[in-house]
C-alpha cells in the first residue's frame, strides 16, 4: 500500500494509538485514597500499579467505545471484548455488523475484517514510527519510567480515581493531546478518554473486568484462507 499509494504515516500511528491506549489502560488500578493526589501519593500509586501488574499480568473485559472524528457527522459506536497481557500482547474483538479482530503478540499487529475477508498486517520491532509509538505508549501505561515521558496528575473521584496523562515531548504530543483514565473503587479501569491534536476523541467504557489467565493462542493470529492481506506500512 505504501509503495502504491503514499499515505500519511502520522495518521496510521495516531489511529493505532487509540487502540493500544485503550487496551493497556485496563491495567491501571489504584490503591491510595487522597484528593487530590500529591506527587508522593501518585508515586505510591504508580508503584502499586506496577506491583499489581507483576503479580497478575493478564486482564480481560467487555468494552463500549464511542469515537468522535472530524470525518463523520455522528460518533461511531462499537462494543466487544478485549484481552491484554503485559507488557504488550493484546486482542480486541468488535462485535456487531461491523465486526473486527485486532491482535498483537508484541511483534506483529493484525487487524482482521471478517465482513470484507481482509486483514491489515503491521510489523513491530523494526524501528518504524509505529513501533516507536506503540513502545512509548506501552511504556507509559505499564508505567515504566512513565514520569519521564508524561506529566501525570491524579485525583480521588466519588467512586475511584481520575488520572490524567499529558505527553511531555513533541513526538508524543504529535500522537495525542491528553489521556484521561477513571478507575473504580475495585481498582479496575472503568473509562478512558483520549483527545487527539486534530480534535478527534475516543471514549471507552469497560465492564466485567477479570484477571483470569488467558491462553497464549489468543494473541496469535493466522489469517483465514482467502483473506486479502495488506501491509499499509510495507513489509
Amino acid at each position, binding site marked *: 500500500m505504501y509503495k*502504491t499509494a503514499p499515505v*500519511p504515516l502520522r*495518521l496510521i500511528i495516531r489511529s493505532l494509538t487509540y487502540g493500544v491506549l485503550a487496551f493497556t489502560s485496563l491495567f491501571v488500578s489504584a490503591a491510595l485514597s487522597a484528593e487530590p493526589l500529591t506527587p508522593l501519593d501518585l508515586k505510591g500509586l504508580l508503584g502499586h500499579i506496577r506491583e499489581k501488574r507483576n503479580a497478575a499480568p493478564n486482564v480481560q473485559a467487555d468494552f463500549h467505545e464511542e469515537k468522535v*472524528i472530524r*470525518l463523520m*457527522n455522528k460518533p461511531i459506536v462499537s462494543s466487544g471484548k478485549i484481552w491484554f497481557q503485559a507488557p504488550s500482547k493484546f486482542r480486541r474483538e468488535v462485535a456487531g455488523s461491523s465486526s473486527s479482530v485486532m491482535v498483537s503478540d508484541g511483534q506483529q499487529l493484525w487487524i482482521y475484517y471478517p*465482513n470484507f475477508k481482509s486483514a491489515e498486517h503491521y510489523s513491530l520491532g523494526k*524501528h518504524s514510527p509505529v513501533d516507536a509509538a506503540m513502545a512509548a505508549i506501552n511504556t507509559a501505561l505499564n508505567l515504566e519510567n512513565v514520569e519521564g515521558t508524561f506529566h501525570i496528575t491524579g485525583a480521588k473521584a466519588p467512586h475511584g480515581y481520575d488520572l490524567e496523562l499529558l505527553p511531555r515531548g513533541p513526538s508524543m504530543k504529535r500522537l495525542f493531546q491528553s489521556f484521561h483514565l477513571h478507575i473504580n473503587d475495585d481498582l479496575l479501569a472503568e473509562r478512558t478518554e483520549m483527545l487527539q491534536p486534530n480534535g478527534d476523541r475516543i471514549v471507552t467504557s469497560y465492564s466485567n473486568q477479570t484477571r483470569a489467565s488467558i491462553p497464549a493462542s489468543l494473541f496469535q493470529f493466522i489469517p483465514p484462507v482467502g483473506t486479502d492481506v495488506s501491509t499499509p506500512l510495507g513489509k
Partner: protein
Amino acid sequence: MRISDLIARVLTERRGTVWSVVIVLVAACLTVLITRMALDSDIINMLPGKFSSVQGLKVYNSDFEQTRELTFALVCHPEDADKLEEFAPGFAEVLRNQPWCERVLAGSPMETPEGVHDLQSMALPLLLNLDSPVFTHALEVLQPAKMRERLHHLHEQIAAGSPRPQFELEFDPLGLIAPAMKPFAEGNAIQEDQPLTSPDRTMRVFLVVTNQQSASAFDSQKLMRQANEFRARPLQGWEGGPLQVLITGRSAYVSDISLSMRYDVVATLLGSMLLVGAIFFVGFQRWLPLLGMGFALLLACLVGLAIGLLIFGRLNMATIGFSSILVGLGVDFAILIFGRYQQARGDGESHRDAIATSVAKLGRAVFFGALTTAVGFLALVLSGSLGFTQLGVLIAIGILFAGLFMCTILFLFVRERQTVMRHDWLFGLVKRYVCWSVQRPKPVLIFSTLLLVGLCAIGFSPLFALPFDASARSLEPKNSQASQALAAIMHKMPTRWEPVLAILRAHDPQQLHDQWRKIADHWAELQRAGKIKGFSTPAALALSPAIMQSNRAQLSGLDFAGVRSALDQSLEAEGFSRESFKPAFALLTDLESMRDPAVPMPHWRDHLPKTSSWWFLIDRYFARDPLLTSGFVTSNAPIATHASYESLSQQLPVAEVPVVFSGWSYSLANLLPWSQHQLILISALMAIFDAVLLALLYRDWRLWVIQEITLIFAVGAMLASMKLLHIPLNLLNVLAFRLVLAIGVDYGIYIILIWQKAHDLEHDVAGVVKPVFLAGLTAVSGFGSLGLAHNPSLSGLGIACAIGIFWSLVATLFFTLPAAALTEPKTWRQA
C-alpha cells in the same frame, strides 16, 4: 667559440645584462600570474575527461541542485536517543532560520501535514499525465454508484476500527489522488531505503539547500565559514550529553580541498626547499650557490606557471605539486653543474674556465636528462586527465627552463674568489666506494643483483598482490572534515551503496516523457529478472503534453454536476462531514476547469510551494534546466569491479535513448582498465623511448643492456616496496611508474656517459657519483615532501615516486656502476 665558452664569457663579463634579462623575465611572469591566475578545485578534473561516465559526473555536479546542498548530522550517545528525537524538530527550525538556508528536510515529507498537502497539490497534473487507459480507469471512481460503494466501504472499515480508511479519506477523499500518485510512488521506491535517522536512533540527518551563489571555491568557503559558525554556537534546548554536529556535502568538500591547497603549497614547497637545501649544503658547504639554486628553481617554477596559465587559462589543484616536483628534479642539474664547477676550481681553473668546463662536460647530460624527464612528464598528456595533463606540461616546461637556468643563472650566485673545501667527507666516502666497486666490482654486483632480483621477484610476482584502491575515498582529501562526516554518516546509516546515475537530456517535454517511460519499462523488466535491486526515475514527473491533451478530452464527457450531486448524497447517506470533503469538491472544480481548452495545462512545478520538502526529491531528478534529468539504479551489490561495470553498462541502456551512465563507483569501475592501461602500456612506451634514446646516446649495446636492467630493477623494487609497505595503487599514483622511468634513467645517463669518457677514475667518476648521489637524495626528498600534502592524489603520487627514485638511485650506484666497471674495465685501468 663553443657554447660553453660563450655562456662563461657572458656570465662573467656581462653580468648586468644577464640580470636585466632576468628581471624582465620575472616581471613578465608575475604580470601573467597576477592577471590570469585562476584555480580549478574540482577533483573530477583529475579523472580522464574522455569517459562518458566522468562527463556524467561533471554534469551532475555542475547542473543539478545538489551542488548547493549540505548534509547536517547530529550524533549523540545511545542514552540520549530519545532526547535527540525531541531535539531534532527544533534544530531543523533553527537551521531554517539561518540566512544561508533555503530549505531543510528533517524527515519524510509524508509525515508532516504540509508535505501531505504539497503532494495533494501536485495531484491534478499527475492525474492528467496518467496513461489514457489508467486515467479512464481512475475516473471510474467518480461514477455515482462507485462513489457510493467506496464511501460505504470506508465507513464500514472505520466502524470496524481500522485506521486505514481514516488516513485514506484525509489524504484522498475523492479517490483520485492515490492513482495519480501511484507512478510517482513506484518510481521513488529507492528513496525509501534512505531514511534520515540511523537504526540505533543516535544519528539524525538534515538535508539543507543553501543559497550559495556558485559552486566556486570562494563561495564554498564563504558558506562553510557561516555553517561552521552555526555549528560552533551552543545548541539551545539540548539537555543531553555530548552532541556532535557533522557537516558534509559538495560545498564542504570544495571548501576543505581549496583550503588544503594553501597548506599543500606551503608545506610541500617549504618541505622540499628545506630538505633539498639541507642536502645541497651538506654536499657543498656553500650558501650563496644554494641561494642561486633556489632562485633559479623558483624562476623556473614561475616561468612554467606563467606559460601554463597562458596555455590552459585555468589550472587544476593538481598543479600545486608542480613546484615541489620541479624543485626535486631541477636541483639535480644544480648539483651536477655546481659539483663539476667546484671540481674544476679545485683543479686550479679560473672562475670563467670552470664555468665553461662544467657546462661543456655536463651540459649534454643535463640537456638529455631534462629532455627525458620532460618527455616523461609530457606523457601525462596521454592520461586524458586535465589535472595531470596540466601538471605534466607545467613540469616539462619548468624542467627545460630549470636545465637552462642551472647552466647560466646559477653562476650569477657563484663568487669568483671562493675558498676550496678543506675536508669533503662525503666526497671521501664516495671516492672510497667508487674505488672499491670499480676495482672489485663482482662482490657489489652479486650482492646488489641478488637483492634487486629478489625484490623484482616479489614486485612482478602475481603471488603477492598489490592492492588497487578504486574507491572514491582514495581520491578524497586527508583530514577533510567533510570526508570524515560522510564516513560517519555512512557508518551509522543502514548498509547501502551508491546507485548508478543515469543522465538524460531531452529536446522537449514530450521526448523527455517518452524516453523515461522506455527506460522505466526496461529497468522494471531488469528488476523483475533480478538483475538489478531497484531503480527510481522521474518518469511520473515528466509530463507528456500529448497524453495530457488526450486525457483532457476525456473530461468533456464527464457530468461534473452529477458527480457533485452523487458525492453530496453519498456523504449524507454515510454520515460523513461535508466540511471534511472540501478538498474533494475543490479537486472536482479543478478537473472541470480542465475541460476548457483555453485553460493552460497545469504543471506540478507551478503548484508545489518553493519551500516544500518535496523539492529535495525533485531536485535529484531535475537539473536547473528541466529537460536535463537523472534517474538512479541500485545494483544487486556495490560496484567494485570492472566486470560489474560492464554487466550494468550492457544491461541498463535502452535502444535509441541517449542516456549517460555515471556515479562515482560506476565511473571508477569504468576507469580501472584505463588505469591499468596507464600503468602498462604508457609506461612501456616510455621505456621504449628511453631505450631508443639510450641506444643513440651510448652506442654500446652492453652499456645499454646494463641501463635497461637498471630500470627494470628500479621498477621491480618499487613494486615490491609498495607491496611490502601495503601502499595501494590508485587511479592516480599509477602515473608514478612512468615518472620513475623518466627520472631514473637520468642517473644512469650521468654515470655511464662519464664512465665512457673517464680518464681519471678518482677525478671523473667519483666527481660525478657524488652529485648523482646528492641529486637522487634531493629528488627523493622533493617527491617525498609531497607526502605532506592533504591532497591524496598528490601525496600518493609523491610517495610512489619517492620510493621509485630511491630504488633507481640504489640500482644506479650499486648495479650500474660496478656492472659498467666489469664490462669495460680497461677504461679505468688505462686512467
